[in-house]
């Protein structure tokens, strides 16, 4: 059900959290995570910032390295304590009962405020049953809330590992439309594809017709699958920003 060593991840996250929150907050958090008691689990998830605070956590380079060894691509740098606390809480959830596990976590998505959504989408790479969250991830990409999109797009290995080509292409286009930094998207080059190049070139023509500009990374993504002459011809329409 998990594609990585869950015990190692829980232990490492526990160490990092203990270094970043007060002892009484840790005493509380270390006793949470029982998803058979849905109400308590939901309340713990919601009240996390009341317990942990919202300070940005510190993490040693060794811990970051270890994290990347346990779950490649997964990073928690610059996270706030409540975000980490929520992801830790989710990592504690027993996944044996697949239906219950999915229902409880999906319900958190349905009632989430912004910071909760950030934490939930950040947790996708460490949740059980990776293939179960594909539709949820695609739904997240439809969000119009900047921080939520960044939680999915930036330094998150889940989309590149799990999304279909069509959903991946939507992610890239949404990132462009919302002024995201494309270079922070995990798997941008690995998932590049001819259909995306076609969409990007159409988009470049449309922008040119409107007298608007495009980001330079667009050409980088389109070029491997597009005739150089065509790229140059479209580029002539306007200058890049």
């Amino acid at each position, binding site marked *: 059900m998990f594609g990585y060593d869950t015990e190692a991840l829980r232990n490492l996250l526990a160490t990092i959290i203990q270094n970043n929150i007060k002892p009484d907050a840790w005493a509380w958090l270390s006793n949470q995570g029982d998803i058979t008691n849905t*109400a308590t689990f*939901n*309340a713990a998830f*919601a*009240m996390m*910032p*009341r317990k942990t605070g919202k300070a940005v956590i510190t993490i040693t380079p060794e811990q970051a390295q270890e994290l990347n060894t346990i779950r490649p691509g997964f990073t928690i740098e610059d996270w706030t304590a409540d975000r980490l606390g929520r992801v830790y809480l989710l990592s504690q959830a027993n996944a044996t009962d697949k239906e219950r596990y999915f229902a409880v976590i999906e319900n958190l998505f*349905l*009632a*989430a*405020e*912004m*910071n*909760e*959504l950030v934490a939930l989408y950040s947790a996708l790479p460490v949740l059980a049953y990776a293939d179960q969250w594909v539709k949820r991830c695609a739904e997240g990409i439809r*969000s*119009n*809330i*900047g*921080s939520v*999109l*960044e939680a999915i797009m930036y330094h998150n290995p889940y989309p590149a590992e799990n999304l279909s080509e069509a959903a991946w292409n939507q992610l890239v286009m949404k990132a462009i*439309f*919302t*002024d995201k930094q494309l270079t922070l998207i995990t798997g941008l080059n690995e998932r590049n594809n001819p259909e995306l190049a076609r969409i990007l070139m159409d988009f470049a023509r449309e922008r040119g017709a409107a007298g608007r500009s495009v980001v330079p990374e667009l050409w980088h993504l389109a070029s491997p699958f597009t005739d150089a002459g065509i790229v140059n011809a479209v580029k002539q329409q306007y200058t890049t920003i």
Partner: protein
Amino acid sequence: MCCSHSFEDKPLPGQKPEAFDITAVKGMKFFDPHVHMTSRTTDDYQAMADAGVVALIEPAFWLGQPRTGIDSFRDYYSSLVGWERFRSSQFGIKHYCTIGLNSREANNEALAEQVMEILPLFVYKDGVVGVGEIGFDDQTAAEEKYYRLQLDLAKEAGLPVQVHTPHRDKKHGTQRSMDIALEHCLDPYTVIIDHNNEETVKEVLDRGFWAAFTIYPFTKMGNQRMVEVVKQYGSERIMINSAADWGISDPLAVPKTAALMKLNGISAEDIELVTYRNAITAFAQSGQIDEADFGVNIDQSAKFEGNSILRGGQQPRVDKSSIIIS
């Protein structure tokens, strides 16, 4: 919560209204503790920010027509802590909310039961500063039942209560709301009695509750009357709000009333208390209000999502005087 509109009380014809001169309150900060932004446009957000509104509270209420299913409630509550909060942050206005089952819809008991089940999922969320707006509308038995249940919920969650008082049989309804709150052992200092008028204010203050006044054209308080109330009762435990919603209402009611108070010689200290500080003092008992958050975007990484060129989370300004839309 808004009102059943009456359009009968139109202003007298021939009276030339005085223009709102924003310079009278320039540099002042305002907190509107009751405004339904879900029903308002981006123009309103922009105007509020320009007039000095730095933070607001959006109470949960009905939608002008009854909801027919639990999912509508859930999506609404989730929009108050989600999309609407984000939308507000785009204008540099800190958005808080209160969560509750409003009195009108308490009368659909089958649905009300389901709503009570999901309320705990929302009242503990970040930025939820109270249970509200709850109380009486028709003053039915069902309304009383869910009012009481939600008072207990507020007590358990350690949250202030924002009490809507009825339009019809107002004075009695207000008294009853306070009696019941005290019966449930709530500290009146954690209860904000809303939509007061000249007839209700004295008792509300005497019994130790907060008295909120809604400046809302035609059906609630006008701000000239409000000036007189502050002259008579002072500024202790009094706050004003716009309760602006989908009806004919004014999201600038708080800054406008501050300006009118200034023109009428009310002290700057008193104006600050009734248009800013008292609301913060009352609702900060939730532990969810930090003034350091005002005037900045909630989430510094938040950016407007559209097809524009925004940076830093601010909405772009549209030159409304221009015929060109680019």
